[in-house]
């Protein structure tokens, strides 16, 4: 039996991990951005002060980029509070996490550190190492010019790679008029793009977009010529705008991350989804199979209750995010399970045509799922069970205590929405573990983590689990696990 403080600690850490996976400080369906940020800030403060080693260790988990950046920032701001040993681990965790973060977010973090006046030796070393590890300094200088400039100024970066003309990058950032021309082709293209239209097509898409506007180039002509320079994410993002302008930007849905793809599909009008059914379904299935990997088909009989009620609209900042997560989970579970029964709360059968509509009768859907007698039951919902309220919790409680006390069916609730008032994701019932979810890709790991949330396992096991995750995380250091989404 664990002691009480240990259980509380385990609960606090899980609370924080769930928050760090889901919360992005943006507006949600039921709460505003300010409430979300206030709540999240408190949670960060609380966990950092009380459980600093665990706070740092959560960088090794599948927390979202927003929270990863926040954790790094807070760790560096309060470096003095860490022990010498802890500081070493923290440094390695931070470096490993920064290597996996998208570049714009890291530059934003560096700028925030600069604004907060954090300029200790460790911070400078971390910035230096991260910038040195960037694959193409010239690309960063062009694409993230302001970011690199402020980072270089803040951390006194030398700004020249091995075998490069010393100072060219520095001149490019700080005194671009000092040179008549640059030796690096990309830097020179940027210089020429100021007066030569043709040169802007050698630049990255986001930079070229500004030049195109300055030169008054039509959107259609611009999109067609810049298409080869776009990243995969950009190509997906401009699809609809390109079609409206009649421009041809070929899309490549293969290789897109599953949840990103689900978001794209949900952004399409229903008629388009019907017309492109084979293509979209094929891409989603392929992404799900790729994510499932070796685990495909090993989960046995699976039932899923998926929320497509009106609240999955999300907010203006997170459009249809909860629904996209549910849709991605649907395809992933289809790949993972041997037999699979999806149950949408609206009663709709066709997953591809999912749209946010109607109330959330979770209780009846859970009953439908239990009648299927699955080995695993996965519920993806924001936890606002309202038709009638609380029925899902009651059904799960009675079922667990009276009908399946042995746990023949393992049930888990995944919640994509952070509840600012409760400081965690909303639970359905104490008998079913709840975990936050952002990307469906993390589903297997989350199901593993969720068993800690049942309250039976204590801090020691949780600590062991975290240590193991940290070890794995640092072992694969340097090789980003996820596809590089630098531009997306």
């Amino acid at each position, binding site marked *: 039996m664990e002691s009480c403080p240990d259980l509380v600690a385990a609960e606090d850490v899980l609370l924080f991990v769930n928050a760090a996976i889901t919360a992005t400080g943006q507006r949600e369906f039921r709460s505003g951005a300010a409430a979300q940020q206030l709540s999240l800030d408190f949670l960060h403060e609380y966990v950092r002060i009380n459980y600093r080693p665990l706070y740092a260790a959560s960088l090794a988990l599948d927390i979202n980029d927003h929270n990863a950046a926040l954790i790094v920032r807070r760790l560096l701001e309060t470096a003095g509070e860490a022990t010498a040993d802890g500081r070493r681990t923290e440094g390695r965790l931070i470096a490993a996490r920064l290597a996996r973060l998208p570049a714009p977010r890291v530059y934003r973090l560096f700028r925030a550190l600069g604004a907060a006046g954090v300029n200790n030796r460790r911070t400078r070393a971390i910035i230096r190492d991260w910038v040195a590890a960037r694959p193409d300094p010239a690309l960063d200088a062009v694409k993230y010019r302001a970011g690199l400039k402020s980072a270089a100024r803040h951390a006194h970066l030398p700004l020249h790679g091995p075998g490069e003309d010393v100072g060219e990058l520095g001149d490019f950032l700080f005194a671009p008029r000092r040179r008549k021309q640059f030796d690096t082709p990309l830097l020179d293209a940027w210089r020429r793009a100021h007066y030569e239209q043709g040169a802007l097509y050698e630049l990255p898409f986001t930079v070229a977009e500004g030049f195109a506007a300055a030169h008054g180039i039509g959107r259609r002509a611009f999109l067609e010529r810049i298409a080869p320079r776009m990243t995969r994410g950009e190509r997906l993002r401009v699809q609809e705008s390109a079609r409206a302008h009649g421009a041809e930007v070929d899309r490549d849905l293969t290789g897109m991350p599953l949840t990103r793809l689900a978001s794209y599909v949900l952004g399409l009008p229903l008629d388009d989804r019907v017309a492109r059914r084979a293509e979209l379904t094929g891409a989603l299935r392929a992404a799900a199979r790729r994510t499932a990997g070796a685990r495909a088909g090993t989960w046995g009989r699976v039932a899923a209750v998926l929320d497509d009620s009106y609240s999955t609209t999300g907010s203006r900042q997170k459009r249809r995010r909860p629904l996209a997560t549910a849709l991605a989970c649907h395809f992933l579970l289809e790949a993972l399970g041997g037999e699979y029964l999806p149950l949408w709360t609206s009663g709709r059968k066709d997953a591809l045509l999912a749209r946010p509509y109607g*109330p959330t009768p979770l209780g009846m859907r859970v009953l439908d799922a239990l009648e299927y007698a699955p080995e695993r039951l996965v519920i993806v919902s924001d936890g606002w069970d309202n038709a009638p*309220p*609380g*029925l899902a*919790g009651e*059904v799960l409680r009675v*079922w667990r205590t009276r009908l399946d006390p042995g746990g023949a069916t393992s049930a888990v609730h995944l919640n994509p929405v952070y509840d600012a008032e409760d400081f965690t994701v909303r639970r359905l019932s104490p008998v079913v573990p709840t975990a936050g979810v952002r990307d469906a890709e993390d589903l297997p790991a989350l199901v593993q983590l969720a068993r800690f949330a049942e309250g039976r396992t204590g801090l020691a096991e949780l600590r062991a689990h975290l240590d193991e995750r940290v070890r794995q995380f640092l072992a694969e250091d340097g090789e980003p696990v996820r596809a590089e989404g630098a531009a997306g």
Partner: protein
Amino acid sequence: MSRLDLSGLRARPAQVWGAVRLVPLVRAEPITDLRLHRELYEDGPLTVRGERGTAYTAYVPHGFVANWTGDGSPAAAYGSQLSDERGPVVCAPLHLPRKLVQRRRGKEAGTGAGKGPGTGPGKGKAAGGPSGGLRFLPLHLALDGYLALHFGGPSIVWEEWTRRAVRDGLSPRAERAYRGEAIPGLDDALRVFEIHPGQCGVLVYVADALAAAFVVPHPDDYRALHPSLLQDLYGELMHQYALYGGPVPEFTARIAAEYITSLAELRSAAERRQQEWESQHAVLMAGELLDESYEVRQAYRMGRFRLSRFLPPFALHRTQHIGETITDGKGRVAYLKTFRLTDKQVRRGHVLHRLAAHDWHVGRTAEAMGITGPELVRRVTHLGFEGLLERPVERPAKGRG
């Protein structure tokens, strides 16, 4: 006197947000031959010249347009019709009986108040087929019914009444109300509310007091008109309840675990919870609206539907609602909108009723109410009708000199 017949509408589980509880009403079979949609008037206050040099000024945020067919074939749906008049609605002149509804018949009928409600519905209309529309201002009919209560004033010139009271009646008569946007939390409650499939109405509770009932004929109409609840009127009491009445609890389902031995039993227990809520809601929560008997006055006939307003009996110390409704041939409600009166408003209606019943004779009315004459005078003054009564002779004049 009759009751509201909400048969065909079933209550679904409530959704709670802060102090606001919204109970959806779902229709199994939508009414297709009567449709409502909304017109927005963005010109601000509008003034209409009436007859005999009177003018009628109103701020009208939105109006409803009812379309119906004579033979029961589906009426045009919201959004799919072409409207030729987008100008401001033409209002009624300020004398009784007022014309609060307006046939949409093009420009020649659009200006005056020539065609009263009694003109008859079938005139100039082909049998069957779409029969044009009827514009009316939501809640206007109901409030007007309340404001016009014994509007004419004393019918016999007793000495207690001033000359103005006898000449002008209760004019001007005013009541205060709050717009839905001013009710704290109502906007968020309506925004996060998840509309049920087939939903044709909603009951709005603020701090568990019924603030408004809203019913439309068709689910599509409801989806279009759901945000209009924010532009409706609510009494001052509702504003205070929302401001000071904290969050109301959710009625969460409870299932007794000890009697459940199979999934089938669990399912039937869950279904029973659903039915229990429905019956309990009708008795415990909506009782004050549904059990009351109302004095219904028909304002307009359109095909098999009747637009009418209703007034409660103005019994003291009981929550009461005024409202307007469209009912079909069997008296079932197709459209309903209500306004909850505050206690003071109920008392006003009560006193006016009693006075009228006794020919505005103060002494006889007071006797019937079991109070003294001066006490009745005090009450009438207190209720905001001080301009009607002569200053009592025995009371010394103050501030003269």
